[in-house]
C-alpha cells in the first residue's frame, strides 16, 4: 500500500522521538503521489480557477439594516410617516402588527469610487475604499424569526439540519492545513447567537465537516487544555504507550485505524502550541473593528506559514470560515 520506507510502523517509531512525524508522513505521501486515503480532509482541487486565497466570513447579528448602510431605498421617503400601501400586501413580523408607519433612513447616501456604489454617511471611512468591496444586495429571508433566518444565511434553508457553508467548503475543497481544524467558528464574546450550533453543523455531511468552535480564554477548543495535575511529559509518555499498543493490534492495511493513530498526534500538536493559531479575537478590546480584521488575517497567515502549507498551492483556501456573529440579515460580504 505505502511506498517502502513510509510504512506506518516506521513512522510511528519516528513519532516516538518527536511529534510532527505523522504530519510528515502525509505530506511525503502527497509528494510521492500516494492517495492519503486516511485523511477525508485532504485538500482537493477546485472545480474553477481560484481567485481568493482565504475567506473570512463575518456573520454580524444586530448590525444596522441594509437601507441604512449600503442599499438605499428611496421609495421609503415617498411613504414617510404613512402606512405601507395596500398593494404591497400584509407583511409579517414576529413582534409588531406590521401596520406601523414607514420610517425612511435618516442617513444620507452618496456614490463613491469608480464603481459609484452608494454608501451611507454612517461609514465616512469605508466610503474611501468601495472599489475594494463587492456588495451583494439580493439576500432575503423566508422567515421573520431570528433562528430560522440565521439558518438560511448559513445553510440556505430556514430549517436546522442542512450543511453550513463552511461544511460544504471543507467537503468540496478539503483543507490545506495539517494541524488545524479545517473549519473554525468564533462566536462573539457575548455568547452564541440564537441559531446556536446548527448554524455551523455539517447536517447530513459526515461529522468531520462540522465547524469547530474556537472560544476566548485559555481553552479555545474544548478539552484542549491539559487536565489538572497532568504534565505534558506525562501525557506524551501515555500517548507514546497508547500508540505503541495501537500499533500492535492494528493491521498494516487498516487505514481507518491508522487515521485514528494520526488523530492523536494531531491532537497533541494542537494542544502543544495553541497560541500559534489562535488569533486575538475580541474586537471590543481592539482599537477598531478593521484593526481586528487585519490581526485576524495576520494570524491566519502566521498559522499557515509557520507550517509552510497555507499559501503554497495558491488555490482557494476558504477552509477557514470564521464566523463572527454580528448581523442577521444585512448580507454584506467583505472581500479581504
Amino acid at each position: 500500500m505505502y511506498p517502502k520506507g513510509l510504512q506506518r510502523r516506521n513512522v510511528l517509531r519516528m513519532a516516538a522521538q518527536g511529534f510532527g512525524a505523522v504530519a510528515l508522513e502525509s505530506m511525503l505521501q502527497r509528494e510521492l503521489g500516494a492517495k492519503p486515503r486516511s485523511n477525508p480532509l485532504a485538500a482537493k482541487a477546485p472545480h474553477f480557477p481560484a481567485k481568493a486565497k482565504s475567506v473570512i466570513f463575518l456573520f454580524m447579528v444586530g448590525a444596522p439594516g441594509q437601507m441604512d448602510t449600503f442599499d438605499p431605498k428611496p421609495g421609503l421617503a415617498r411613504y414617510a410617516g404613512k402606512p405601507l400601501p395596500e398593494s404591497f400586501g400584509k407583511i409579517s413580523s414576529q413582534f409588531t402588527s406590521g401596520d406601523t408607519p414607514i420610517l425612511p433612513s435618516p442617513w444620507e447616501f452618496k456614490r463613491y469610487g469608480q464603481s459609484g456604489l452608494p454608501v451611507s454617511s454612517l461609514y465616512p471611512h469605508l466610503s474611501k475604499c468601495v472599489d475594494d468591496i463587492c456588495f451583494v444586495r439580493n439576500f432575503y429571508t423566508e422567515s421573520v424569526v431570528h433562528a430560522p433566518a440565521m439558518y438560511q444565511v448559513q445553510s440556505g434553508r430556514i430549517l436546522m439540519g442542512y450543511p453550513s457553508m463552511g461544511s460544504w467548503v471543507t467537503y468540496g475543497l478539503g483543507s490545506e492545513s495539517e494541524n488545524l481544524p479545517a473549519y473554525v467558528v468564533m462566536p462573539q464574546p457575548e455568547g452564541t447567537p440564537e441559531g446556536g450550533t446548527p448554524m455551523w453543523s455539517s447536517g447530513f455531511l459526515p461529522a468531520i465537516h462540522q465547524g469547530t468552535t474556537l472560544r476566548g480564554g485559555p481553552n479555545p477548543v474544548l478539552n484542549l487544555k491539559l487536565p489538572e495535575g497532568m504534565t505534558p511529559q506525562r501525557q506524551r509518555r501515555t500517548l507514546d504507550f497508547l500508540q505503541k499498543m495501537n500499533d500492535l493490534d492494528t493491521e498494516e492495511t487498516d487505514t481507518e485505524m491508522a487515521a485514528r493513530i494520526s488523530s492523536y498526534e494531531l491532537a497533541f500538536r494542537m494542544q502543544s502550541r495553541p497560541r500559534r493559531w489562535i488569533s486575538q479575537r475580541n474586537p471590543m478590546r481592539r482599537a477598531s473593528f478593521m484593526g481586528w480584521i487585519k490581526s485576524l488575517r495576520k494570524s491566519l497567515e502566521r498559522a499557515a506559514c509557520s507550517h509552510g502549507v497555507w499559501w503554497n498551492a495558491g488555490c482557494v483556501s476558504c477552509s477557514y470560515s470564521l464566523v463572527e456573529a454580528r448581523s442577521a440579515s444585512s448580507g454584506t460580504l467583505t472581500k479581504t
Partner: protein
Amino acid sequence: MRRNLLLLAAPLLIAATLTERDAAFIGKRRSYWTFQKPVRPEPPKLAGFSNPVDAFLVEALYSKGLSYSAPISKEKLIRRVTLDVTGLPPTPAEVEAFVKDKSPNAYEKLVDRLMASKHYGERWGLRWLDLVRYADTNGFELDAERTHAWRYRDYVINAFNSGKTYDRFIQEQLAGDEMWPGDNDALIATGFLRAGQEHIVGGNQDEEMNRQEVLTEMTTVTGSALLGMTIQCARCHNHKFDPIPQSDHYRLQAVFANTVGDELALVPKQAQQTSLDAAKAHDKKLQPFKAQVKEIDEPYRLKLVEERKKGIDPALLAAFDIPNEKRTPEQERLAKEAKDQMTPAWDDVVAALPADVKAKRYAIRKQMHEVDLDEPEPFAAAYAVANAKKPADTHILKVGDHKSKLDLVPAGLPQVIVDPAAEFPQGLSGRRTALAQWLTSKDNPVTARVMVNRIWQLRFGTGIVATANDFGTLGARPTNQKLIDWLAVEFMDRGWDIRSIDRLLLLSVAYRQSSTYDEAKAKIDGDNKFYWRANKRRLEGEAIRDSILAVSGALNSKMGGRGVKIPIEPEIYELIFTEGETDNLWPLPVDRTEINRRSIYLLNKRSVRLPMMANFDQPDTITSCAMRSTSTHALQALTLMNSSFMQEQSKLFAQRLERECNGKQACMIDASYRLTLGRLPSAVERKMVIEFSKGEQKLSDYCLAMLNRNEFVYVP
C-alpha cells in the same frame, strides 16, 4: 349541504386528471426491482451450510472465486456478539464461561442469553431512535424540553425487548390512537409522528408555514424510516430520479392532514388533580425566594425606568400618562410603545447591581434552585397525536411553498405501487390506519425488505442495500437480491418477528467470521460487498461511553424514565439559549448515580450536543439517520484524553483494579486487559505495561490509555 358534497367531490375529480399525468411520469419505472413484491427464492443446497443465510452468501462468494474467512476466536466472538447485541463489553466472567463451554450449542446459548437481556432493546432502541430522529426537545432557538417525549423512547426499547412484531410496531406508531383506543402503549407509540423538530417560539407566527413543516416532518419520516423511499424529494417538484410524482408527496401528506399533536393524560382526572395540586404547593415554596429577589431588584429597576423615561419621545410619554380606560386606540398603541421602551430587561437590572448585592441575589436564587430540585413529577401524559375535529384540505404546493397552492389532492399511497383509483379513506379518522395496514400487508413490496435490511445492517455493519433509507434508483442495488428477498418473505412468514430474523443472522457462519484482511480476496472485492470477512466497526459514542462506565464499574443500568442531564463543560453550557436568567439551565440530578446511566437515557437536546456523542458521529436528530458515519479526527482524541469524564473514569478504573487485586501488579495487568478487551495481554504487551509503569506515570494514566485503544473502541 350541497356545497359540502361538492367540496368532497372536487379533489376526486381533479385527482382523475392528475393521475394520467402522473402515470405517464411513472411510466416503465414501475418495474424497478424495489416495487416488485419479493418472491421467496429457493436457498441453494450447499453442504455444510444449513442456515439459508449462509447458503445464499456462499453461493455468491463462490461465483466470484471467494470464500468465507476463518472463524473468529471464541474470545473475540463473545466480545463481538456482546457489543453488538447489548452495546456493552462482556464481563471477564462471561468470557471465561463461554471459552470454557465446549458444548456444541455454546454459541447458541450465548446468543439466546444476550437476546434475553434488557440491553437488547436498548441497543435496538438506539437504532430505531436514529431513524425517527428522536430528541427530547423541540429544536430551533428555544429548544424547549418535551416533558413526556421520553415515554416514546421507552416504548421503543420495550417493543424490542418484549418481541413486539414489526407489523404491530408500525401500526401502533402510525395509528395507535385509531386502532387501539384506550391502549396507553399504542397512544405513546404515535410519538413517532412527532419525534422531529418543531418550531415553537413566541410572537406572530406564520401558522400555516409551521403547520406545513410539521406535516412535512410526518411525511418525510414515514418515507425514510418505513418505506425506504425519499418521498421528501418530491415536495417541490416531481422526484428527479424516482417514479414519485409531486402529487404523491402531498397524497401521503394528506394522510396526516387531520393529525394534530397533543399531550394526552394517561391517568384519571383525580390523579391529574392531585398532581396539579402538588405542583401548586411546590410553586408556593419558591415564592418567598422570588419575592426576595424582586425586592432586591426593585429600586434598581425603578431607577433604570426613570433614566429611560428621559430619552423617550414626549408624545409617547404623554399617552402613557393617560389612565388606561381613557386612552384612544392610538394612544393605547403609543402607551404600549412607551412602556416597552422604558422597561429594562432582567439583565439590564442585574448589570446595574453593585457586586455585593448581585452576590446576595444569586445566593438567594441558588437556594431557590435547591428547593426546586424537589419539583414533583407532572402527571403521566403521552406526547402523542389525535385527529382534529375539523378536516383540513391538502393542496399540491408549488415549490413546496404553502402560499402557492396548486391542485387539491386526496389522501393516498404512492402511485408507483398502488393504483390511484383504489379506495382510500378520506374521512377525519382512519387515514393513518389505512396507511399502516397497507404498509404491513404481505402484498407490500417494500416494508419487509427495508426492515430485514436494517436488521442485517445492524449485525454486519453494511446493509445488503447499502442505502438503507433509499431503495430508489439513486440508492444502492442489493448486493444479493435473492438473499434480501428470501429474508423479506421469511420475515413476513414468521409473523414479522424481528427477533427471530435477528437470531438467524447472529447464528450464521457469516457473522462468526474473522475480520482479518486478505489481500487476494480484497483484490476481487475490496469493499467486502459479498461478506468474505466480518467488518470491523467503531462503536458509537453512546457505546463507547457505556463501555467505559462498565469497565470503571460506575455504570448504572437502571432503565427508562425522563432524560437525564449529565455534567457538561462550561463551554457547552454557554450554548444553551435563553432569554431569561442563565443560572439554572442545566440542573443535575439529585441522585448522582443517575449521571452514570446508559447513554440512551441521557437528555437529547437538539441544539446542545454532548461532545462525547457528537464527536463520535451521533446524528443531529434533524433528519432520519439510516447509518451513522464513522469519522476520525483530533477532537475525538482530545475528548477521550482530556475531558473530565475520562479523567474521572480512568481514576475509577484504577481504583477498581487496586481494590480487586490488592494492588498486585501482575493481577492488575491481567484484570485490566480482561475488563477492557476481554483477553489476557501477550508477553510483549505485558512487558510494555511493566516498562510503562516505571517512572512517574500513574496507574490512572495506564487506565486512560487502555480506554483509548483502537481495540477497545472497535467491534472486532
